[in-house]
């Protein structure tokens, strides 16, 4: 198993009800697989997984990427700074 740290921001945080959590995931899980797992385990976040932005260790990541060991994963909507 791989223990990752999940961070949520903006709408994702509101729906998750938390800023962060630890999560055990299978080794070699892809970002797509991670989104599917979250959608299953956290019904509040299911809709959000369709358009969420994902980062791995503070870099944008995409469906085919494999989640590294002990990764810091963040999930959030398109940014709106300025």
């Amino acid at each position, binding site marked *: 198993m791989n223990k990752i740290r999940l961070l949520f921001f903006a709408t994702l945080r509101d729906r998750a009800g938390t800023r962060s959590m630890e999560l055990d995931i299978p080794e070699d899980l892809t970002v797509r697989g991670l989104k599917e797992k979250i959608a299953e385990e956290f019904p509040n976040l299911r809709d959000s997984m369709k358009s969420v932005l994902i980062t791995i260790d503070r870099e944008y990541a995409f469906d085919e990427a494999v989640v590294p060991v002990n990764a810091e994963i963040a999930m959030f909507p398109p940014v709106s700074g*300025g």
Partner: protein
Amino acid sequence: MEPSNFPTIFSIIEDEIDLNDLLAQITLTSTGAAAIFTGMVRGETLRRGSAQALRGAAHETEYLEYEAYIPMAEAKMKQVADEIRAKWTSIEGIAIVQRIGKLYPKTPTVLIACTAAHRDTGVFEAARYGIDRLKEIVPIWKKEVSPDGQFWVEGDYIPKAGE
């Protein structure tokens, strides 16, 4: 001073944005020009060109609440600064600062400043590029609180691989 030592400021802050101080920090003895962009909280959105619409329903904002994924946001601000330097080699100093927290109308929320020896070597374009890129890739979000309720403002840019 060698280009590699040119000052680059990238920072998420909670206190007021001090333009005088930031400008001084990116001014070298070789600097002759600075272009600075600042964004502020709009308290009302006027609808110009239509007196009726104006009387009708100007949209009101009580305040905006900003949050950031701070370590990533600062890294992405640094990346925006690197992109600016790659595009405009004349740029000397760069400051990219976002204020977060609860910010009321008329308050400056963000600053992008670029300095160079002369004004015709890209400072305006570089500052413009900087704010455009910040709004695309730097992980910051704002929630608007108005008499009608509160809602998260969402951007529309999807970063590409490597951004």
